């Protein structure tokens, strides 16, 4: 393999030579948080990161806490090796979404002081140093101000700041900083020179260069640009320019997402549901209008109501369609009605609307030739819901359990079904097929009597005492034509609150109607009727 030989190239052919002069004074400030995945986990779970913690992706350590590092854990290690060095290590799977989500707080707190922040990756963000340092005084002071702002927002963090010409140099300065590292203008090349080539971050190049005898960035920068381009192509040339301290990449500030959450304060506090609904109408319309303007349709909405005595009534509402102003006001109304008296004992002082899930509006625009059946059904059912309340319209789902009423879960229209236990499990003791067509939501009290008028009961051995002969349902007296049972059910003996021990019977009266009866603690109930 030929070693690229340094050769003199006329000045005008040297690519990238003009960058330094052209962008002199465009200083870049980089904020770096070492071991961000660990910090993000601690923030999202509310845990304490001051113990050996490591985040693992593809069996390699990608981040660890300082406590773990002190025990000899390092990034790039295999998990087994890290655990052998530090047996008390808490190993977590990597979660990029969590890292990004928590980093948004950092970006927000920085944006409050200086606009135009670029998120390089979770844990690293960059901004132009000029504006803030000019305002605060010096670059070092600007860095301190930013770190303090982040600590105020998130609590103690180990942020580092590097300020230099160009983002690459500033990032290297941040890696070396404690906690602030400043590379003066024009001395980027001399700062980078002693650093190893692995800092370039390109795996194929950083494994090849040491084998060619190029160990530091200074060695790499000393190579001729044209030779580097000939040997390593455009990517190599770009890295070469970075190693020379002439990083051409500019800070690309993100556009902060529009604020979609809306808050409305009531002064004086409102005590009537209708008052709240009426007063919040304009704000709700503004809320939906802002979403529509952003091309978004809200499909999941969080409504938070705060009472005068500091009660917080919060609930997340779902809809199969899109929330429209009237639907949002209905949700506010239902939430207030449900909370009144129990959770809420004072006037309402504030209302907060937050879109939890949004979808592109184009997916919810009515078609040119009218909407499909499901949209019409949703529209009509929502209207009935507005008339009768949220629980007025339900769709049934079948869940698990031994009791018929427990198995059919009624999900209010629009809500996500939450089934406690799956229906497919065997559930010994459940009613055999065919199932009754009328299931009483609340069991009805009945009486099953023998010929002599005595109530039929079970003895201590579970044997029936007396032949069932008359079934009394309310005022009605039905003669028993056939019966079967008892089928004992004894469930959840381990949980005194949910323990239930009862016996089931099937009884057919002389009119041909069959009943499913339950005998529990000496009392008879009708669970269902076979209509």
């Amino acid at each position, binding site marked *: 393999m030929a070693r690229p030989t340094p050769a003199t190239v006329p000045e005008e052919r040297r690519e990238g030579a003009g960058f330094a002069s052209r962008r002199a004074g465009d200083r870049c400030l980089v904020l770096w948080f070492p071991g961000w995945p660990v910090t993000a986990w601690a923030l999202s779970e509310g845990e304490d990161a001051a113990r050996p913690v490591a985040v693992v992706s593809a069996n390699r350590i990608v981040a660890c806490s300082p406590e773990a590092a002190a025990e000899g854990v390092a990034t790039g290690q295999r998990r087994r090796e890290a655990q052998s060095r530090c047996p008390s290590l808490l190993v977590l799977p990597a979660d990029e979404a969590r890292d990004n989500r928590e980093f948004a707080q950092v970006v927000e707190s920085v944006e409050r002081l200086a606009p135009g922040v670029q998120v390089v990756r979770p844990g690293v963000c960059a901004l132009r140093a000029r504006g803030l340092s000019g305002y605060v005084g010096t670059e070092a002071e600007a860095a301190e101000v930013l770190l303090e702002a982040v600590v105020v927002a998130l609590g103690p963090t180990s942020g580092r700041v590097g300020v230099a010409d160009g983002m690459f140099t500033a990032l290297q300065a941040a890696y070396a900083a404690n906690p602030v590292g400043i590379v003066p203008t024009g001395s980027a090349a001399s700062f980078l020179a002693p650093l190893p080539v692995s800092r370039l971050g390109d795996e194929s190049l950083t494994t090849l260069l040491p084998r060619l005898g190029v160990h530091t960035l200074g060695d790499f920068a000393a190579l001729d640009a044209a030779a580097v381009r000939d040997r390593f192509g455009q990517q190599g040339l770009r890295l070469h320019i970075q190693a020379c301290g002439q990083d051409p990449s500019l800070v690309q500030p993100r556009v902060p997402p529009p604020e979609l959450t809306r808050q409305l304060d009531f002064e004086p506090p409102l005590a009537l549901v209708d008052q709240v609904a009426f007063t919040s109408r304009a704000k709700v319309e503004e809320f939906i209008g802002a979403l529509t303007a952003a091309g978004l349709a809200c499909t999941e909405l969080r409504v938070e109501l705060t009472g005068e005595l500091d009660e917080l009534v919060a609930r997340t509402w779902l809809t199969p369609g899109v929330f429209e102003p009237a639907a949002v006001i209905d949700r506010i109304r239902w939430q207030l009605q449900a909370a009144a008296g129990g959770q809420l004992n004072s006037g309402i002082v504030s209302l907060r609307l937050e879109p939890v899930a949004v979808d592109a509006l184009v997916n919810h625009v009515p078609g040119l030739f009218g909407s499909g059946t499901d949209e019409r059904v949703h529209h009509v059912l929502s209207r009935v819901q507005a008339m009768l309340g949220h629980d007025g319209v339900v769709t049934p789902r079948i869940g698990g359990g031994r009791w018929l009423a427990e198995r059919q879960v009624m999900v209010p229209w629009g809500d996500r079904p939450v089934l406690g236990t799956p229906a497919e499990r065997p559930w010994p003791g459940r009613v055999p097929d*065919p199932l009754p067509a009328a299931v009483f939501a609340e069991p009805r009290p009945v009486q099953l009597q023998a010929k002599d008028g005595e109530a039929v009961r079970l003895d201590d051995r579970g044997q029936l005492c007396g032949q069932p002969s008359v079934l009394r349902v309310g005022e009605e007296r039905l003669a028993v034509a056939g*019966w079967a049972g008892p089928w004992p059910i004894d469930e959840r003996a381990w949980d005194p609150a949910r323990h239930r021990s009862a016996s089931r019977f099937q009884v057919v009266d002389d009119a041909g109607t069959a009943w499913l009866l339950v005998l529990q603690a000496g009392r008879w109930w009708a669970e269902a009727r076979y209509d």
Partner: protein
Amino acid sequence: MTLSELPRTELLARLRAQVAVKEARIRQAPFPVHPELAALLPDGGLRPGSAYSLTGAGALLLALLAEPSREGHWCGVVGMPDFGAEAAAQAGVALDRLALVPEPAEQWLATTAALLEALPIVAVRPTGRVSEGDAAKLMSRLRDREAVLLVDGPWPRAEAQLSVSNLRWSGVGVGYGYLSSREVTVTVSSRRSPLRRSARLVLPTPNGRMAAAVAVEPVSGLRAVG
């Protein structure tokens, strides 16, 4: 050859055929029902824009909902807080296309009228007496939307009355066995045909569906043991 030159009988036949084609285009096909019930109902199914009155709903209602639901239609059930959803699923009703309004209280009429806007099959159990005026209002909505209303109870302008009688459960004895199936007589009396039609059906079968009853010679004096 023009129409006027045709022989009279052939002309009439042709015109009748044309009218039939036009009518078929306007009138929607009836909603399907189980073949055993189709033989009893006047149109061989549930005619769009009409109401049916059921006495002794329950399994019969589920059997009526099952076939349209299987075809992909939405069904609504108003005013039945004790609706057995699991039995409905067994009977063949798709639960994800079923909307229940268990307790509309005095708003049952408004709720039913609203549901008829979008749902083709709506079952309702009215609370209290149904006045002629209420029924007329609902009927005009029904005809407009070409939906079907199944009423648990009497209804002034029902297309047909379906009733269940002579119930006989099998599988359960005096202190043994368990309910396995039920034989019923379903009787349909229609406004348009004076003749009552009835059939002996198994409703529900051991798997919760509907089937024709097979006449079996009753074996007396024998009982399964051991």
